[in-house]
């Protein structure tokens, strides 16, 4: 198999970094939950290990998270025509950013990004670019009408807003004198800081705001230095602690 093909053999490599960061799930779990194994040889000596599974490029990423059940249902069945996603070198927009919509009914309006879907270059702005859909309709019950936002493309349909004058601007990643990587507006030169909501994950809003549970080792215990340097090898220290005494002296060995 070609090396370039080998690199993309797992689905997790096609999932965006921001998606994985928000989930806070181990990569192995994401891989296991996303991949759709069609058939696997039994784990027995008379079988060679062979797995037949859906190829990573056959997955079409949606607004649902890749490890969720809805995503699996959307991707099972026949393989759809692939969607072409423009590869972006440097990702500009984070969750919590103020952004202006450029297309659609809400063009010109500004909103805050509530979700980023890197795999499709999508961004969901809260309250903008919405449509109505009906849920839970039955024979006697007409159903509930829900307003839901549609995703917008990061490249063409949305632009970051400069906080100094609240107007849209093009942005570039640059380094400050301290070596910090920041987004700079090309029009005014003002630094647009990464919002605090970008730090949010499924487990916490911010690391400081995390509430420790029973199974968590407290931060103080983890950061405490308990190592005491001694002039003993690892085995000597253990023998001392366990109370093992050894008086035999081994003979010297030589290399010829």
């Amino acid at each position, binding site marked *: 198999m070609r090396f370039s093909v080998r690199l993309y053999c797992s689905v997790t490599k096609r999932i965006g970094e921001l998606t994985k960061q928000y989930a806070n799930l181990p990569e192995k779990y994401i891989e296991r939950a996303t991949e759709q194994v069609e058939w696997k040889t039994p784990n027995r000596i008379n079988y060679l290990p062979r797995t037949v599974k859906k190829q990573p490029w056959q997955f079409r990423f949606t607004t649902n998270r890749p490890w969720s059940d809805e995503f699996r249902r959307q991707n099972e069945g026949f393989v759809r025509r692939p969607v072409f996603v423009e590869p972006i070198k440097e990702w500009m927009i984070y969750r919590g950013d103020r952004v202006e919509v450029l297309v659609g009914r809400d063009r010109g309006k500004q909103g805050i990004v509530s979700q980023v879907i890197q795999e499709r270059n999508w961004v969901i702005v809260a309250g903008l670019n919405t449509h109505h859909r009906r849920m839970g309709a039955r024979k006697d019950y007409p159903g509930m009408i829900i307003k839901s936002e549609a995703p917008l493309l990061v490249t063409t349909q949305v632009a970051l807003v400069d906080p100094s004058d609240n107007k849209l601007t093009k942005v570039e990643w640059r380094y400050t004198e301290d070596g910090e990587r920041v987004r700079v507006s090309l029009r005014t030169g003002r630094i647009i800081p990464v919002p605090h909501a970008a730090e949010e994950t499924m487990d916490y809003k911010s690391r400081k705001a995390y509430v420790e549970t029973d199974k968590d*080792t407290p931060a103080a215990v983890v950061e405490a230095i308990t190592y005491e340097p001694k002039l003993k090898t690892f085995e000597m220290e253990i023998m001392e602690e366990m109370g093992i005494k050894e008086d035999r002296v081994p003979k010297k060995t030589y290399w010829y």
Partner: protein
Amino acid sequence: MASLSSLTRSGSSGTIRMVGGLLFSNLNPCRQISVSSTLMGKRNVRKFFLGNKRGTKLFRRDQAKGKTPWAPIYSEVKPTGFMYDDVWHNVPEMIPEIIVPDLTDCKLKPYVSYKTADIYQTEFTAENLFEAVYKSKIIQDFKENKLDEHGNPLEPNDLEKLTPDEAWVLARKTGSDIFSEREPKLWECLEKSLIDEEPPEIAVRSDDLTHPSEIPTRPQKKFLKN
């Protein structure tokens, strides 16, 4: 009669498309005349999870009892004994002993809190160990003028009295094989300075009656730095 039968054989791609009589799987053309032989064949294990249902019921019944030594039930569980003359002998030593340390008063839990700061630690070198062990004593001796002209202590403590041979013996008493690997040669391109290379030690054989002090030593080669 040769006939092309369309089948939903999913290999690496989803479905197969029939285009003009040719089968296209993953856009690679492949021809087959009849596939019923492969599907119905004995060696076709691809899409069928045979699991434990292979063989007749009577065979599987005997297999469970162990009456089919030519086809045992494959299991990865290791035996805790052996069979000798159709008699099973249990060996208690073969039962694995799981040693779990005593976890009372252990503050560590299975997970780490997200609040912990990112910890970066530099390498703990031999120099750091020397400082931790000897530094305070040396400073104390220096202040009290208990060091001789070469800087050696006049009242050495136990750690300062330790010689390299004694240290070697203490380290090897544990039964480990530390310090038993040979010194790398010049041409073996390991991380060794070529400038400070010492000649290899000549081993003393047991039947050699010459005293070590009478063995002629090789002249020390000194490499120029530039």
